[in-house]
C-alpha cells in the first residue's frame, strides 16, 4: 500500500474501524518511520475524541470517586508504589525527652542501639522484599501487555472469521430461497482461471458474492462488483479483497429495485472504491433466469 493509500486509512484508524489487513498495513507504514502519517493520525485521534466530548455528562462523580477511593485505600499497603499522599497533610516526628539520670540514659541508649540494629535488619529484609515485589509486578505488567496484544490480534481474527461465517450463512439462506436468482461470472483476460457467482434473493433482501481464482488484490487497490442496468449503466454493488488461493465470500448490495439488470461484472479499482468503473474487468456475466 503506498503512502497516499495509507493516508486515506488514517481517519478510519482514528475511529479504530480498520479491517485487520488495513491495520497491519498502517502499522508497518508507521513502523517504517512516516512522521507525516504519525502526526496526522495523532491529530485525527483528537478529532475522534471530540465526539465523546459532545455528549451530555452522565452518572455521578461521587460514586466514581467512592470506587477509586476504595482502590486507593487497598493500594496504600502495596510495596511497589508509595501510598497516596493528600495535599496539606504532613506528619511530624515525635520529639523524645532526655532523662536526668545517666544510668537510665545509658540503658536507654543501649536499648535504642539494639532497636536500631534490629530495625536496620528489618529494613534490609523489607527492602529486599520490596525489590522482589517490584520485579514481580514488572514481570506481571509485561506479561499483561503481551496478553493484551495477543487478545487484540485474536479479536481481529475472530472478527474476520465471524464476517466470513456471516457471509456463508447468508449465502446458504439465499441459495435455499424460492426466488433465488444466480448470475454466473466468467473469467476475462486478467484472470483466466477465475470464476464467480452472485446469488440474489429479493424476499430475503440479500445478495451474496462468491469467487475463486482471483489474483490477490494489489496494494492500494480493491475489487469492485457492479450491477450493469439498462436504466443507469454500472451501479456499485460492493468492494472486496482477494488473497491468492482463497475463495472470496462477501455480502453485496441487491440490484437497484425495479431496474433491469443486463450484466454483472468485477473490476479492479483504487482502494476505497469508485462510483463508476475505471479499471480492468476481471469477471463478467449475465443473470440467469428468474
Amino acid at each position, binding site marked *: 500500500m503506498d503512502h497516499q493509500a495509507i493516508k*486515506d486509512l488514517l*481517519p*478510519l484508524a*482514528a*475511529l*479504530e*474501524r480498520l*479491517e485487520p489487513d488495513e491495520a497491519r498495513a498502517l502499522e508497518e507504514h508507521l513502523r517504517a518511520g512516516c512522521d507525516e502519517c504519525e502526526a496526522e493520525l*495523532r*491529530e*485525527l*485521534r*483528537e*478529532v*475522534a*475524541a*471530540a*465526539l*465523546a*466530548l*459532545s*455528549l*451530555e*455528562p*452522565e*452518572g*455521578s*462523580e*461521587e*460514586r*466514581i*470517586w467512592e*470506587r*477509586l477511593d476504595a*482502590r*486507593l485505600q487497598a493500594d496504600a499497603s502495596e510495596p511497589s*508504589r*508509595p*501510598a*497516596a*499522599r*493528600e*495535599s496539606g497533610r504532613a506528619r511530624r516526628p515525635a520529639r523524645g525527652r532526655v532523662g536526668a539520670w545517666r544510668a537510665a540514659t545509658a540503658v536507654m541508649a543501649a536499648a535504642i542501639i539494639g532497636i536500631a540494629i534490629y530495625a536496620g535488619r528489618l529494613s534490609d529484609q523489607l527492602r529486599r522484599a520490596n525489590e522482589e515485589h517490584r520485579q514481580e509486578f514488572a514481570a506481571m505488567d509485561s506479561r499483561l501487555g503481551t496478553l493484551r496484544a495477543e487478545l487484540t490480534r485474536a479479536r481481529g481474527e475472530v*472478527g474476520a472469521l465471524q*464476517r466470513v461465517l456471516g457471509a456463508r450463512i447468508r449465502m446458504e439462506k439465499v441459495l435455499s430461497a424460492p426466488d433465488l436468482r444466480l448470475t454466473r461470472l466468467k473469467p476475462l483476460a486478467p484472470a483466466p482461471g477465475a470464476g464467480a457467482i452472485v446469488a440474489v434473493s429479493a424476499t430475503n433482501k440479500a445478495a451474496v458474492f462468491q469467487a475463486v481464482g482471483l489474483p490477490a488484490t494489489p496494494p492500494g487497490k*480493491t475489487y*469492485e462488483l457492479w450491477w450493469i442496468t439498462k436504466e443507469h449503466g454500472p451501479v*456499485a*454493488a*460492493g*468492494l472486496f479483497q482477494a488473497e491468492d488461493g482463497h475463495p472470496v465470500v462477501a*455480502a*453485496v*448490495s441487491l440490484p437497484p429495485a425495479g431496474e433491469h439488470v443486463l450484466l454483472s461484472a468485477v473490476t479492479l479499482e483504487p482502494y*476505497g*472504491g*469508485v462510483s463508476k468503473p475505471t479499471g480492468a474487468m476481471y469477471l463478467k456475466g449475465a443473470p440467469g433466469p428468474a
Partner: protein
Amino acid sequence: MADTQQAMPADRDLIAAMAAGDSEALRSLNVRYGRMLAALARRFLGNESDAEEVVADVLWQAWRDAKTFDPARGSVSVWLVTLARSRAIDRLRVNRARKPPPTEQPASEPVPDPAVELHQVQRARIVRAALAGLEANERAALQLAYFSDLSQSEIAEKLGIPLGTVKTRMRNAMMKLRETLSERRE
C-alpha cells in the same frame, strides 16, 4: 482539545501530580472527566453502574500509569477517551457473552461543579456545532463508527449502503470535522 480554562490546572499538570502520588489530582481528574467518560461508556453499555465501573477502571489505570504518560504521543483527553471506549467495548462483549443486553436505564440527575460544567458545556457546544455542519448521512456513518463496536461491513449492512460508500462517508466526515474544529480553535 487543549485546556483553555485559565483557572484550572492543565490536564498534564494533574497527571504530573498523580505521578507524584497526589490523590487530590486524581480526584480533580475525576471531577473534570468522570461524568463525560461515563456518558461515553453508557452509550455502549446502556447501564449507568457498568459505565461508572468502566470510568473507575480508566481513572485507576491513569493513576497507575501517570508516570509513563508521554504528552508527545497525544493529549490527556485523547488518552482517557481512548481507554474508556476500548474498555467499554471489552465489557460490552463480556456482557453479551454472559447475558442479554441490559435495558436502557434513565441517567441519574447530575450534580455538576459549575466551573467544570461551564468548561464542558463550552467544549461540547463547539463539537455539536461542528457535527451539525456535516451532511446527515456522513454524521450517521461517523456516529455509528464511533459509538458502536460494528465493523465497516456491519455498518454498511446496517445503513444499507455499499462498503466503499461507508468508508467514503466516514473519511469525509472526519476530515470535515477536523477542518471545522481547527477553524473554531483558531
